């Protein structure tokens, strides 16, 4: 419960803060709370991978780009204020519609006893038996993304 409140507050901080560096730090807090939820749902491997990939790699990349661009002094232009309200209203409308649609759904309760399914032993069995082809395809995706990033970022 506390984790969810922290997650929602820091997610709002991502959207509402003026300074981009503050947004990045709020997003890191959100990712840690989501990792806490993963641990509570017995997905230990995913929690560790989530912290390593998001908080360790992706957010460092974001912070690096932000520092490189030196955006702290620059303020966003505040014209088109109605566009901001239109975005907030449409996002809120989506929230209301989804919550109203799912409010009466009856779902089973999650039990608190631990399951073995999120351990790396079981996940590795599934990954390398059932999903070995997507695994290899994702390695090709990574290679092409790396080459693409280098080609795009090359100074010419």
């Amino acid at each position, binding site marked *: 419960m506390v984790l969810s409140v922290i997650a929602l507050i820091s997610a709002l901080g*991502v959207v509402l803060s003026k300074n981009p560096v503050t947004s990045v730090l709020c997003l890191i807090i959100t990712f840690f709370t989501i990792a806490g939820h993963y641990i509570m749902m017995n997905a230990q*491997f*995913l929690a560790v991978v989530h912290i390593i990939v998001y908080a360790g790699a992706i957010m460092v990349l974001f912070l690096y780009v932000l520092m490189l661009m030196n*955006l702290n002094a620059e303020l966003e232009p505040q014209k088109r204020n109605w566009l901001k309200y239109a975005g907030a209203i449409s996002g809120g409308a989506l929230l209301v519609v989804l919550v109203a649609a799912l409010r009466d759904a009856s779902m089973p309760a999650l039990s608190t006893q631990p399951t073995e399914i999120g351990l790396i032993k*079981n996940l590795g069995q599934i990954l390398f038996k059932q999903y070995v082809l997507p695994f290899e395809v994702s390695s090709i995706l990574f290679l092409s993304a790396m080459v693409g990033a280098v080609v*795009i970022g090359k100074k010419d």
Partner: protein
Amino acid sequence: MPVQYYIFLSIALFCIGVMGVLMRRNAIIIFMCIELMLNAVNLLMVSFSKMWADAGRVDAGSAQLFVFFIMVVAAAEVAVGLAIITMVYRNTHSVDINILNRLKN
């Protein structure tokens, strides 16, 4: 703790991400909101995985592997996207997405 609790949490996080994409003009913040939406979906998928594991299904780990693949794709997407943003910044000295409408000329 019912599954609906996690469903509503994921919906709230996803809608905050949608609002951020629609409201902000900074391209980097928009990227971060896309990450937030992906994470909301990941959280929902892990909670459904736990639900099916409680129900005794042996293949409930597939959802967690799906989350793993989403993380892989998100990492690749961020690498390419930030390279594009850096390139745009180098050419226009701004990351305001309103600048990008000059691409159509």
